[in-house]
């Protein structure tokens, strides 16, 4: 049986302080990385890492802006557990690569991501591909329907052709601002950088 670890009575205060430092640092890391935002679906979460700016900007200027957020296409929606499992798996890989500065200059989608996107295209646009008037039986059904993905043809939907990290240097993207409260960073009365970004 594991006994409740407790420090010698003389060490109690230093240990409380030491674990306070540890917990504080952990909380600070959660705050600075906006950890709670990752639980939701807000597209601004995805530009917590600024290298996602071109993807955000191109989505923002596409027709998909009106109906979708990033997660609608990029994580599975068959059930809520799978959604968060996929999110956690993808997110941790992104976080690791971003922290190690191993991001490529041009980001390509991986296989698992592409599969999720394909399923999500169908999830919303089902009526387009199951319209009985368009259903025909022919010999090419496998090669031209089953084996291809929507984006094989709809290449510019919705992110356009712009995809390098430096492709849209001045795109107006809601990147995270200074994490400091305004009274601390001297911007209290100054115009916010975010102004006009609408």
């Amino acid at each position, binding site marked *: *049986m*594991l*006994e409740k*670890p*407790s*420090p*010698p009575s003389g060490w109690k205060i230093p240990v409380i302080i*030491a674990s306070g*430092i*540890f917990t504080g*640092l*952990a909380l*600070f*890391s959660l705050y*600075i*990385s906006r950890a709670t935002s990752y639980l939701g679906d807000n597209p601004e979460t995805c*530009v917590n*890492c*600024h290298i996602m*700016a071109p993807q955000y900007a191109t989505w923002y200027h596409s027709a998909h802006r009106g109906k979708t957020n990033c997660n609608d296409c990029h994580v599975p929606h068959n059930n809520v557990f799978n959604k968060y499992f996929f999110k956690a798996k993808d997110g941790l890989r992104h976080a690791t690569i*971003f*922290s190690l500065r191993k991001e490529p200059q041009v980001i390509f989608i991986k296989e698992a991501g592409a599969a999720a996107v394909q399923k999500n295209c169908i999830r919303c646009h089902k009526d387009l591909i199951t319209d009985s008037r368009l259903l025909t039986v022919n010999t090419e059904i496998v090669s031209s329907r089953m084996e291809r993905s929507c984006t094989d043809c709809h290449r510019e939907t919705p992110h356009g052709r*712009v995809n*390098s990290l*430096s*492709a*849209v*240097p*001045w795109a*107006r993207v809601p*990147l*995270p*601002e*200074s*994490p400091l409260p305004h009274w601390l960073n001297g911007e209290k009365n100054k*115009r916010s*950088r975010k*102004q*006009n*970004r*609408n």
Partner: protein
Amino acid sequence: MKPVKEIVKNNPLAGWVLFLLTVVVVFLLGMLASSIIERRAEAVFAYTPLLSFSENEPNSRVWGEAFPREYSSFLRTTDTTFRSRYNGSGLIDMLEEYPSMAILWAGYPFSKDYRQGRGHQHAIEDIRNTLRTGAPSGDTPSPLPNTCWTCKSSNVPGLIAAEGAAGFYRGTWEKRGAQVTQPIGCADCHDSRTMNLRITRPALKEAFEAMGRDINSVSHQEMRSLVCAQCHVEYYFNKNITPDVQYLVFPWKNGTTLEEMEKYYDDLGFSDWTHGISRAPMLKAQHPDFEVYLTGTHASRGVSCADCHMPFISEGGQKFTDHHIQSSLNSISRSCQVCHREETSRLVADVYQRQDKILENRKILEDMLVKCHFEAGTAWEKGATEAQMKEILNYIRKAQWRWDFAAAGHGNSFHSPVETGRIIASGISMAAEARLRLSRLLASLGSNNEVLLPDISTKEKAQSAAGLNMKKLNEEKAVFLKTVVPEWDKQAGQK
């Protein structure tokens, strides 16, 4: 398992291991936090160039060091080679093309010289060269106020910040010849810290206030038109706001349509000048580009000026806003075809069709107005009284305001063909009314014959019919350009 206390007590080494483990974990956690902070700071600074110039730095070359792509495309506004059917990027002598304009503007500086301006980079050169600004030298002042510099230069935001709007407008045009030397540039539209768009000209802010709108709460997309609307609008100089100052005002208090602005001027009893031949109290429409655009189909769908005149361009894999501000007819693939997936020739034909048809009726109105002025002049000669002429002159004023409104805007017949057609049609009916009343008046004065017009088939003939001594004006200007202007440049260079 024994309590930790015991383990540590029995084996001091275990205590050290625990201590070091905690040190390593906290150290790594600190490193992670630091990495997150670094990359977040990157987000703030990676897209903000290191700037070391002042808020209103007039020299665009200084800004250009941080924005080489935008700056080099902006330099292409020096190009003068593009020509469309009716306009282009070079100087086009409009009095040469339409000599009757010299009659319509008789008694007003535009009858001396009206050349279609070139790109933004030529703004200073063009305003120095035009005969309208006169030939100030020694004790002879320019006929125009400093207000005329307002839209010509990126020196203006700094000067207005230092001296206030009225302070900047005060005095005649030559007073600031050595201060205003940079053409239109970065500081006119951009915030130096964030590069956001900003409004630097007080007249637009004041016009918004007069309309009860707040210019600080407009969207970015609206700003992409409003920075242009700082200058490409109808305006007049009000002499009653500050004593001895010709204060720049946009007549938008009642709204921005032709009739609303006309009502504003009528209520004010304002006229730009009294016509040299008909003595009508005239209005000069400047270039109501923005106002006419607002009535068009592109504006109602939220397309901004920059969408067509500063389209995006991709160079070296980077997408940015083309700062070569120009006619969209010279960038059809990037301007029109982004939305309209049609053949270039078809799109150009659509534009020219609108321009041709509008011009057809504009010329009819132009001819009628020339006749109006000469017939009114004849009526005065035959002894018509002020009371007899009052209504007629008012019709001439209104008809020519409509003609000018349609003609002076740079792209009106494309920006809003229906509205421009409507304006010209109502102008024609007013000119017809004026001529009908004039012929009745002339008949009652004992003259039932057609009023014979002088030969105005060329610019020279029209200008002499308008009573101008062009030889003198040109000679004086040549001396001014040779002696005064180099002096201005020298003084500006010394600073």
